[in-house]
């Protein structure tokens, strides 16, 4: 941490005094971030302890080395939670790229601006509703007994599907509904890139005899190259984020086999079963892997797409 430093030296004294307000402005935030972000980081030592909450963080706890990690490794639910996390996160990453890119190109081809704007307004909307609201809505419309989706499928002779309670459908439902909630909002960055394309390029292509598809393929798409690469790289950081808010509000015991993810697992063994050490060990595993991926993704974005955060 940087000290505000009140010992003026002969050379830097004036500078220090001039910069003092900046230090003071940052001081409260530095303290809060230290307490609520950096101390929990130090709190990861819980992962190596047989932690008794009453004795407190950094209290006189019993050290157990890697025991919690070894215990986790042999815990069947833990490994399946890891697998579920990776599978769900993988499909979400892929579809969160493909669908918004496709939709933004299609939106760009809509000539009626009233229609386009209305459509944009509607597809951004689900992003702003919490997973509690969405969960409530989905539980209702996906219900096997009288849910509107199953009724619709019934018109085509499909038997009612237990979307949220069947291991055959749960992952698919998670991925599908998450993409449905976010695809619209995710088109924003791509649409911004498309708006920046020089209209002359389209005219030149038209004069050269390019039809609509060829213009989409050879003008729109190549111009989106940078933003697509950037979003691909940045999404790497989500390899272990299967979406806690969503899963926690939609899953139930009968779909743990396919739907339990690291975050929900951590919550249950930590705060329901009170196995703090084991839960922190899993949290630490997730943190380390995520940090690695996020750092790599930022680094690549910086190197290859000249992406700077500040």
């Amino acid at each position, binding site marked *: 941490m940087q000290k505000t430093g009140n010992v003026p030296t002969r050379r830097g004294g004036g500078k220090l005094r001039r910069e003092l307000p900046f230090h003071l402005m940052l001081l409260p935030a*530095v303290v809060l971030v230290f307490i609520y972000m950096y101390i929990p980081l130090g709190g990861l030592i819980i992962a190596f302890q047989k932690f008794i909450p009453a004795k407190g963080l950094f209290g006189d706890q019993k050290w157990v080395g890697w025991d919690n990690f070894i215990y986790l490794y042999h815990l069947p639910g833990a490994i399946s939670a890891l697998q579920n996390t990776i599978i769900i996160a993988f499909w979400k990453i892929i579809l969160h790229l493909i669908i918004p890119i496709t939709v933004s190109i299609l939106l760009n081809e809509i000539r009626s601006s009233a229609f386009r704007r209305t*459509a944009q307004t509607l597809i951004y909307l689900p992003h702003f509703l919490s997973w509690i609201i969405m969960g409530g809505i989905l539980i209702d419309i996906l219900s096997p007994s009288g849910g509107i989706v199953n009724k619709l499928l019934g018109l085509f002779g499909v038997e009612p599907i237990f979307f949220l*309670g069947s291991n055959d459908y749960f992952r698919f439902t998670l991925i599908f509904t998450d993409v449905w909630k976010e695809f619209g909002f995710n088109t924003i960055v791509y649409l911004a890139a498309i708006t920046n394309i020089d209209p002359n390029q389209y005219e030149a292509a038209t004069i050269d005899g390019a039809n609509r598809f060829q213009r989409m393929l050879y003008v729109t798409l190549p111009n989106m190259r940078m933003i697509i690469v950037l*979003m691909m790289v940045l999404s790497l950081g989500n390899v272990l984020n299967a979406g806690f*808010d969503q899963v926690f509000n939609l899953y139930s*015991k009968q779909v743990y086999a396919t739907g339990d993810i690291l975050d929900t697992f951590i919550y249950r063994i930590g705060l329901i079963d009170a196995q703090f050490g084991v839960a922190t060990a899993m949290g630490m595993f997730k943190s380390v892997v995520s940090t690695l991926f996020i750092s790599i993704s*930022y680094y690549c974005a910086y190197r290859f797409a000249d*992406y700077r955060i500040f």
Partner: protein
Amino acid sequence: MVESKHWSSRLFVILNYIIIGFLALSCLIPLIHIFAISLSDSAAATGGLVVLWPVNFTLESYAYVARRAAFWHSMLVSVMRVLVGVGLNMVFCIVCAYPLSKDKDQFRFRTVYAWYFFLTMLVSGGLIPLYMVIRQTGLMGTFWALVIPGAVPVYNIILLLNFFRQTPRELEEAAIIDGAGQWRIMWQIFVPTSTAALATVALLSTVYHWNEWFNGILYMKTPDQYPLQSYLRTIVIDMKLTNMGANDWQALALVSDKTVKCAQIFLASLPILLAYPFLQRYFVKGMVLGSVKG
């Protein structure tokens, strides 16, 4: 642009309108469906007769919710949380973004501080250690647990500092010559010229605080301290199909329960729907500012 008259092009245009129209409707219909159920009588709702239009229109469900003290109480907690939480977020956002937006020759430690904050976006202690810190700093079971730990919004700070940097340096230099200190320059020059960016981060943090539900469940001791979304969870989610087969669930589905749930879902999303015109305008700006900034 000359439109191709070829049949495949026309077919594409028609298909494209259908696809986009379908996608747009898919985002709207579930909400209308919920709204329609909330305005229907319980027999029609439970019997599955309601699709997009209320059947046997009644405001009974809303009247029932209106009498429910717990609903209003949690609404009050949420409103308080938004007011205090967003207020704190904004103050921290401004006082951090301002010094961090300075060039290195104006503020030598800028990079050190910037990394100090940025690192928290890369690493995290996770659920349990933070839970313990909140316990040991005495926030557990208090309203403050909902607003203090997240008071410094690092992502918003980065958005705002990038915006502050576009303010011409001459403005600041002129103010310094006039004898203005840094605090005054911040409040009287940077803040008034950044209203669009400030609106964006204020809305980001409003939506966050309104929608956040997990901290309420984690850190509040009793349900009467819950903000609206956490309270709503106890009603619409915990009552769900957990541990039950489809048949049990159907038997348990109380007659009036469904319409009341839908009414509360709708009421909880109402503030978002009302603020939506602003949200759309400023969020789009924020997204573009945050992601495409080269």
